[in-house]
């Protein structure tokens, strides 16, 4: 039997060669760019090509009500969208994992995946055709006699919410299904035999068991919603007021990279804080949650 040591399988040189791509990827595309972004955000231009370290960019954020209003709004709407996605996805995940059997469960699961093989731009186009004033749903409402004239259903906060929930659905259903599938049915039967009602079973058995899946789903959905760009800007129009849009405006339109970098860090900070808080709340480790996907 050959001893399966490290050296026996390619040695030090081989290991370094295998490590090189990872180091280049993480170093040059993740680590250093974020250091650069941090440096940008902590400086201020005082003359042509002359910069000094300063907190001015962050100060502007807190002093300009418009900026932090949009920030808080983005965070709040993302939280609501995450909760709504969880509530809508949970029954469907339950049906797939527990009620439907064999082939029909597989078909249902597949049906939930299909829309997400197609880019978000296409799905948003669909919602625009459905909801805009000259669109399908307003025309339908007129035909049914519910409204006298076509109403504009785009450009409302609720429209943005529908779009956000829609686009997040898959990322909630997949972790929920996988955590519910591992729940032993006999536990539910036992609880039922002992006289527990549906709500008690849900609270005492199902939710504790599915907690890792719920956490994973919520973290991913919150993060993706926070960082979303297409859905709020197209479905919300001028009323979208989404924070990623502000970053784009500062970085690309106004070419104010220092301010844009500070905004980027604030968004990254919020996103990271939520991920960490979510993991703490459920007593999960980052690596485990990610690999469960």
């Amino acid at each position, binding site marked *: 039997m050959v001893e399966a040591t490290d050296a026996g399988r390619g040695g030090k040189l081989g290991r370094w060669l295998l490590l090189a791509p990872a180091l280049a990827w993480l170093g040059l595309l993740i680590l250093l760019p974020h250091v*650069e972004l941090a440096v940008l955000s902590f400086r201020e231009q005082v003359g042509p090509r002359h910069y000094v370290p300063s907190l001015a960019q962050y100060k502007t954020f807190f002093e300009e009500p418009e900026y932090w209003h949009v920030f808080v709004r983005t965070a709040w709407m993302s939280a609501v969208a995450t909760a709504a996605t969880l509530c809508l996805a949970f029954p469907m995940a339950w049906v797939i994992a*527990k009620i439907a059997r064999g082939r029909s469960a597989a078909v249902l699961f597949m049906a939930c995946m299909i829309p997400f093989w*197609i880019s978000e*731009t*296409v799905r948003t*186009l669909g919602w625009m055709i459905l909801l805009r004033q*000259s669109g399908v749903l307003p025309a339908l409402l007129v035909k049914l006699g519910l409204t006298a004239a076509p109403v504009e259903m785009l450009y409302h906060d609720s429209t943005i919410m529908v779009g956000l929930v829609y686009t997040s659905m898959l990322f909630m259903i997949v972790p929920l299904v996988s955590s519910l599938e591992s729940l032993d049915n006999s536990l539910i039967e036992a609880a039922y035999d002992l006289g527990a009602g549906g709500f008690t079973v849900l609270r005492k058995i199902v939710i504790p068991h599915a907690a890792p899946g719920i956490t994973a789903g919520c973290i991913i959905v919150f993060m993706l919603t926070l960082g979303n760009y297409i859905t709020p800007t197209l479905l919300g129009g001028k009323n979208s007021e989404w924070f990623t849009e502000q970053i*784009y405006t500062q970085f690309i339109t106004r070419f104010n990279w220092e301010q844009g970098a500070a905004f980027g860090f604030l968004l990254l900070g919020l996103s990271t804080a939520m991920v960490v808080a979510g993991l703490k709340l459920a007593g999960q480790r980052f690596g485990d949650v990610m690999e469960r996907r």
Partner: protein
Amino acid sequence: MIPSLPRPAWLRAATVLYVAAFLAFLFLPLVVVSVFAFNDAPYPAPPWHGFTLDWFFANDPVGRIGLFHDDELLGSIWTSCVVGLWVTVLSVLVGLANALVIERHDFRGKKLLSIMMLIPLVIPGVILGISILAFASQIAQFADDHFGLDLRFLRPGLALVVLGQFSYIATITTLTLRARLSRFDRTLEDAALNLGASRAATFRTILLPYLRPALIGSAAISFLMSFADFNTTLMLVGGDSPLTVLMYGRMHEGATPVLNAVSLFLMIASAVLALALMRGRGRRPA
């Protein structure tokens, strides 16, 4: 509740209704997009004016231009394909190296490295985009100031788009390949080595065939994710727009049904890809 327990009739009915409503919610936007690709009207909106294939085939310089004659759209599909191929090749190769080094080697900092590899997935795409943009132009500026070099590829453009998308798609290929590699039976390799096979031959004849399904799967996912990426791309794009960015721009202006035609074309293309993958998986039990 589960089937083995008594479920009242109303609960069964409600479940069926829920599932139906849920599926309608999921598919309604896609159905609408597809249907209005065939509407004989200048805007993708009701009422129905009759069936036409103009939005695919028309070529009227002063009137309708269908998808297959819209050079800008076709060009952007090509751009997306080129970007997608580069991202796929890079992500699969780097993912394979990462999987091998994490699953089969021990070294200090391995735990940290494997966590670091997951990080790109939890950074919002917009921020990946701006950080890479800022860093690349910093290097370009440095090269220009100190060596008089004009590093064009570090300015916004397709090279940066490829790097930006790769920066997080590599995490996904790494996870997929690691999952497969961790179930590999290493005695197979030991047997080959004991029988006198060279290291390269063992890799080619034992490990690669074993990893094949995961390699194909992660390549397909990489390509699709690259094709669909918007957030990172938007920040790094230069003159040539990939399809998602071009579509976004046109949707802002109020687009013609030619966008529906492209969308339908994309849906069919991804369906074909998905079916091909599933058939491939069916033939080779994983």
